[in-house]
């Protein structure tokens, strides 16, 4: 089928817009870095406390050559992934229990509400005292930051399952377990995906805060340590790497999301265009 002229025009216009957006995004980054470099070279800003893109690059090469950089990155990513996964799995399990038993759900409601609003990082020092100065504590902090949101989001999804769809399962003589597996879980996939997206960011916060407080490795450690000895280019480098990691993790979740979308079909797509 051949497109009409108007359609061709429209497509051309949209393509042009897309290239413009990409170009501007790239230009913005380029100008920002160039200005930064020029300002610190000419002494307009203090090179010692603001560092510069070139010094960051140099320290990146330096730290990469002896492998310490990769070690720090690996530790942070590892802790985040473990914290994120366990937060999601445990949160979902708790949501299942609360969905199953309305009484427990009602009893726990005020506690969940308070815990949800509480800045979980406030608990980090306590957890470190309990679990010690080690990776376990950091993962626990990451888990803490994401678990409550997961419980609330997933439970909310569970509870908004269609009453008549549940009635359908019941009319076939289905058990509560079957209601859960045939209707409630599949239909709340959109809120599950949402929970995943929120969790990535939160687990990251948990891990970095944990590393600020304890640990001898990781990007959070790198930031704190280098800021204490005023090696600002290393601090900046860690932040840049964190930006990249955040982007990559988001991308990974997106791939997972698409996978779930495919499995659970147009339901989820519909949900997205509605919102």
């Amino acid at each position: 089928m051949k497109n009409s002229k108007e359609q061709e025009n429209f497509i051309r216009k949209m393509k042009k817009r897309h290239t413009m957006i990409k170009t501007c995004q790239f230009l913005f980054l380029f100008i920002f870095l160039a200005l930064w470099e020029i300002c610190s070279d000419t002494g307009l800003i203090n090179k010692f406390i603001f560092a510069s893109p070139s010094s960051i690059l140099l320290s990146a090469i330096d730290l990469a050559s002896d492998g310490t950089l990769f070690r720090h990155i690996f530790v942070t990513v590892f802790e985040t992934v473990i914290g994120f996964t366990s937060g999601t799995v445990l949160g979902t399990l708790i949501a299942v229990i609360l969905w199953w038993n309305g009484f427990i759900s009602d009893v726990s409601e005020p506690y969940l509400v308070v815990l949800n609003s509480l800045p979980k990082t406030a608990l980090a020092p306590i957890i470190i005292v309990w679990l010690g100065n080690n990776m376990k504590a950091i993962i626990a902090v990451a888990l803490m930051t994401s678990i409550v949101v997961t419980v609330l989001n997933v439970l909310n999804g569970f509870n908004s399952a269609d009453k008549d769809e549940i009635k359908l399962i019941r009319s076939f003589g289905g058990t509560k377990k079957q209601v859960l597996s045939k209707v409630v879980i599949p239909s709340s996939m959109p809120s599950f995906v949402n929970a995943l997206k929120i969790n990535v960011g939160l687990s990251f916060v948990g891990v970095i805060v944990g590393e600020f407080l304890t640990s001898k490795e990781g990007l959070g450690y790198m930031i704190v340590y280098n800021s204490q000895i005023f090696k600002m280019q290393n601090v900046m480098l860690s932040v840049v790497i964190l930006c990249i990691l955040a982007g990559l993790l988001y991308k990974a979740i997106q791939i997972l999301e698409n996978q779930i979308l495919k499995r659970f079909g147009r339901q989820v797509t519909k949900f997205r265009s509605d919102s």
Partner: protein
Amino acid sequence: MQIVAGVKDISLFYHSVSCETEAIRNLSFDVEDGEFMSIVGPSGCGKSTLLSILSGLLKPTSGKVYIKEGYKTGYMLQKDHLFEWRTIFSNACLGLEIQKKLNDESKDKVHMLLEKYGLKQCESCHPSQLSGGMRQRAALIRTLATQPDILLLDEPFSALDYQTRLSVSEDISRIIRAEKKTAILVTHDISEAIALSDRVIVLSKRPAILKSEFKIDIQSDNHRQSPKFREYFDKIWKELEK
């Protein structure tokens, strides 16, 4: 004819902290084997509640429910509720799957039903690819697959637009008659009730009590064409207005 289902003097109250709702009051009727019976009444009068009671999902506050020994009920709801994450075939197998009766033999039966009622080429489609009428048919096959003896239809056509509604309702009732099932159809659409059934029961506003009963004595296959159709319509209409 033998009686296969019925209720005797049933009442039902819904309870919540703020109020008590009387949905049904002292209702009695019987259904004969192979009969297509309709229950009409205004929205919110307790029709869905009545079907839930017949299917055993709800217990009446008082009164008795009778279902002939060994007979099973099958439900069909207002929306088709086909799951988008399943294919049409897998949707049609849902009931069997829940009752743990899904095996090669029963799968063959589902294939057969889908073929017989013109959905063979859609077996591996997802629900959104089908028209409203085809979806409703798939939903009926999902219920028929579990081999119920009495079908409970809760306004199964009211979600369709008027055009499709006429043809789909004829279509579905033809299938039900071909499968020789007893059916209880609940609706607020008087003409639909007359067009499809052998008998119409009229319920009052909530709490539902039985107002009157009409035997639809039309010989021709197409009830809507008959001159008696108008007569029945007026009578039932007046009865509902009262």
